[in-house]
């Protein structure tokens, strides 16, 4: 009996030692990795700082100067703030409109492209790589580049911005949608082709009901991103609140109360749409839960 227990004891000791060796090796590896990571970050920062014209260490104390001036001026002229908010509200509506239209067009285009590039659903299976590359290209070109080119060709205004954002959105949503499509069941599609439905009927009735909640969720997320994008495009002359913000900021000191009003509007918009879209996304998942329980 004693022998048995000692052999059992030595077996456990072996397991302990083996596992401790394993743990020590793992800790060594993570230690080395951490050291490399820190070294890379520090050296990268030093190089970037050395090449910087101004220098991080001299400049970073001034980071808060601009916000401080804006807040100081805005609080000085606080009585003018409601007036500014009313003045810039139409520009905000224009920005939101640009985002909404481009999200809608982008979502429709992305849905079609995603179905054309998903195996098992594609209308022309051989052309799947072509449609995928088209989406890659659309994603790769920054919105601001397209907008600059279009503004040069068409002149400034909301239409170039809308086209630019919609173009990028098609590529971005197409990629996300095709990942949703991968997880959709092809059985309804097969059922519909067995009754002689054509491709668009099969997609509309067999795929869309399955993927619609996820599509909507991604499209709402994209809508938030597009509001910011369309505000930024205003800086390059595409109209909307970004244009007003650029003007307000370039007038410089003494006019920062207008900038403050625009910042407030933008902030309120982002918060509002974040709340609205999370409400709808919640309701979607909640609705699906109820269906599952029933």
């Amino acid at each position, binding site marked *: 009996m004693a022998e048995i227990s000692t052999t*059992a004891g030595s*077996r*456990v000791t072996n*397991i*302990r030692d*083996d*596992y*401790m060796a*394993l*743990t020590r090796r*793992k*800790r060594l590896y*993570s230690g080395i990795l*951490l050291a490399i990571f820190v070294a890379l970050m520090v050296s990268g920062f030093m190089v970037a700082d050395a090449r910087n014209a101004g220098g991080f260490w001299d400049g970073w104390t001034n980071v808060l100067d601009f916000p401080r001036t804006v807040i100081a001026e805005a609080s000085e002229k606080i009585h003018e703030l409601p007036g500014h908010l009313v003045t810039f509200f139409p520009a905000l509506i224009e920005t939101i409109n640009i985002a909404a239209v481009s999200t809608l067009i982008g979502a429709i285009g992305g849905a079609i492209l995603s179905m054309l590039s998903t195996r098992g659903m594609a209308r022309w299976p051989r052309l799947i790589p072509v449609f995928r590359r088209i989406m890659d290209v659309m994603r790769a070109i920054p919105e601001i580049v397209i907008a600059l080119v279009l503004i040069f060709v068409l002149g400034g205004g909301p239409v170039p911005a809308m086209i630019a954002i919609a173009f990028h959105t098609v590529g971005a949503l197409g990629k996300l949608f095709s990942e949703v499509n991968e997880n959709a069941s092809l059985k309804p599609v097969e059922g519909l082709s067995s009754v002689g439905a054509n491709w668009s009927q099969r997609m509309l009735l067999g795929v869309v009901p399955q993927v619609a909640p996820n599509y909507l969720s991604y499209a709402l997320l994209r809508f938030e991103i597009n509001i910011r994008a369309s505000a930024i495009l205003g800086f390059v002359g595409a109209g909307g609140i970004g244009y007003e913000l650029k003007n307000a900021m370039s007038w410089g000191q003494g006019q920062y109360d207008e900038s403050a009003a625009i910042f407030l509007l933008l902030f309120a918009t982002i918060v509002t749409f974040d709340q609205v879209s999370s409400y709808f996304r919640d309701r979607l998942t909640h609705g699906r839960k109820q269906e599952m329980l029933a």
Partner: protein
Amino acid sequence: MLRIEQLTKKFGSNTAVDAATIEVDRPMMIGIIGRSGAGKSTLLRMLNRLTDHTSGSVTFEGRDVTALRGADKRAWQADCAMIFQQFNLVPRMDVVSNVLHGTLNRRSTLATMFNLFPTEDIHRAIDILDRLGIADHAPKRAEALSGGQQQRVAIARALMQDPKIILADEPIASLDPMNAQIVMDALRRIHEEDGRTVIANLHTLDTARRYCDRVIGMLHGRIVFDGRPEQLTTGAARDIYGADASFSEEATSTQLDAVGRASNVATVPA
């Protein structure tokens, strides 16, 4: 020791647990039986505070655990280990790490991030695994183990917590009869050797009769039976399951030795 008073849980208009009152005065092994949806799991989850209760109270050693918040609540969860039907291990981490998760309540996030568990804890984890007969699998990933082995890893994680109570939610429902017996024997042995209270949801009557000192029956969220296993007659079982005279235990019995029962309760693989 443990007192559950008028504990109620409502999901919308459904009442999952309806005014459950249970008093446990000394460490024992308790089996809770009842149909699916009778509220067994919800009851255990409320004890562990995984689910919040609607009304009523749970008192453990004079402390109202339903009122705990934040760090106090997590400390209570560490004292009240939970074992799940689907084991709920981290599949891609090794067995010993999974067992060491039992000490997370005492560790900081930073120590966890860099995997800095003390050597004594690692040794203790391997000792617990050895006690449950699976020390040889220590360095393997949890997902590489069979269901019965994974459930024993989950029990080891629970023991690592050094808990005052062990709650087991259908611990053997996903296991074959052989592994089910090993797991139930392990739980019984933990109760007998360590003197810990074990509360297990069970879906088979014979398991409850064979391993438990006390059986509680639930139907539609209410406690309809509370007594010693000998008192659990076929008639009582019919009431618990809301069944008619056609109900027969043997029809669904999963016991290996339907003839010679209760002979190998104490013999456990080491």
